[in-house]
């Protein structure tokens, strides 16, 4: 049977990943708030010095944890942008450049976050 349109890819994977990252973000952001804004904030003023000092003591585990949060945020946010554009543009071939562009922006943003978080690990 002919589909109403024969667009490829179908949109299944972005839709599914949007839900998975959304569900994971609930856990990661909750943990982030509990750790930084309730637990650490009760020990003193939550400022750059405290964040960088705490990050040093958390080691690789803390770094990986924050990078997962960064990855989830970047994917969920940029996939949301793609979704909005795809909602409004009828001919999806006109925005075929969008997904590669968002991947480039997303990977660049993710690496930038990783670089800055790594500065805490090396004691800057």
């Amino acid at each position, binding site marked *: *049977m*002919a*589909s*109403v*349109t*024969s*667009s490829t*890819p*179908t*949109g*299944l*994977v*972005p*839709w*599914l990943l949007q839900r998975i990252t959304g569900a994971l973000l609930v856990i990661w952001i909750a943990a982030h708030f509990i750790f930084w804004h309730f637990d650490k904030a009760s020990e003193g003023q939550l400022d750059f010095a405290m964040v960088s000092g705490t990050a040093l003591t958390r080691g690789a585990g803390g770094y990986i944890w924050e990078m997962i949060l960064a990855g989830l945020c970047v994917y969920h946010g940029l996939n949301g942008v793609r*979704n909005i554009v*795809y*909602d*409004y*543009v*009828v001919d*999806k071939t006109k925005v075929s450049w969008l997904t590669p562009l968002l991947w480039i922006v997303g990977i660049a943003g993710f690496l930038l976050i990783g670089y800055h978080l790594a500065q805490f690990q090396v004691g800057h």
Partner: protein
Amino acid sequence: MATVSVFRFDPELDERGYFDDFHVPDREGQTVLEALFHILEHEDGSIGFRYACRGAVCGSCAMHINGRYRLSCATQMADLGDKVVIRPLYHMPVIRDLVVDMDKFFEKYERLRPWLVNETPLGDKERLQSPEDRAKLDKLVDCILCACCQASCPFTQTDPEYIGPALLLKLDRFYSDSRDLATADRIEAGDTEHGVWRCHTAYNCIEVCPKDLNPTASIARLKGAAIRRQFTGRVE
């Protein structure tokens, strides 16, 4: 006496739509469709609206009445107060007044092959179905294609190619039918950028359906089938 504001638009004469006010006497049991007939017969014979069965079965008289999509033949004037505002269905071109162009809607419908696909030879009897399998279709077969849900969906406006809630519910009606053998094709028909993935669960379709159907659930069922097919290869 109720004041009825009716959307007017003649593409050959008007640059944009406007409203005409009419006064319709109160009458017990009067529906909005009957009020429109009163206007047609006594006040303005040029008013355009669509109707057929007058019994909430054909879906022809769906309109936007006092801020909500309803069947005009099944809506009592007494329930609407003294001021009634009637507009055509949204997201479809207006042919005249309250009549919208539904060609695109039915073109998309036809492309979904809305009939039972089963090439196996018919035996002595009709194709049998268990009561349990038939029960799965109970609500799905009630859709009268009035397009209230289609008009209320925000994504049929932003993406005119979006199949839309009414037609995806119809697709689910055949996907869920145990006698239909085109299951893979049904799933594929919904699994497109203009298909089930355009639905962002605004739930407007459920709110407005005059038959209390749930197109969102149908879309979710088709999404589940597409995901199973994608990752496990199972067509079911």
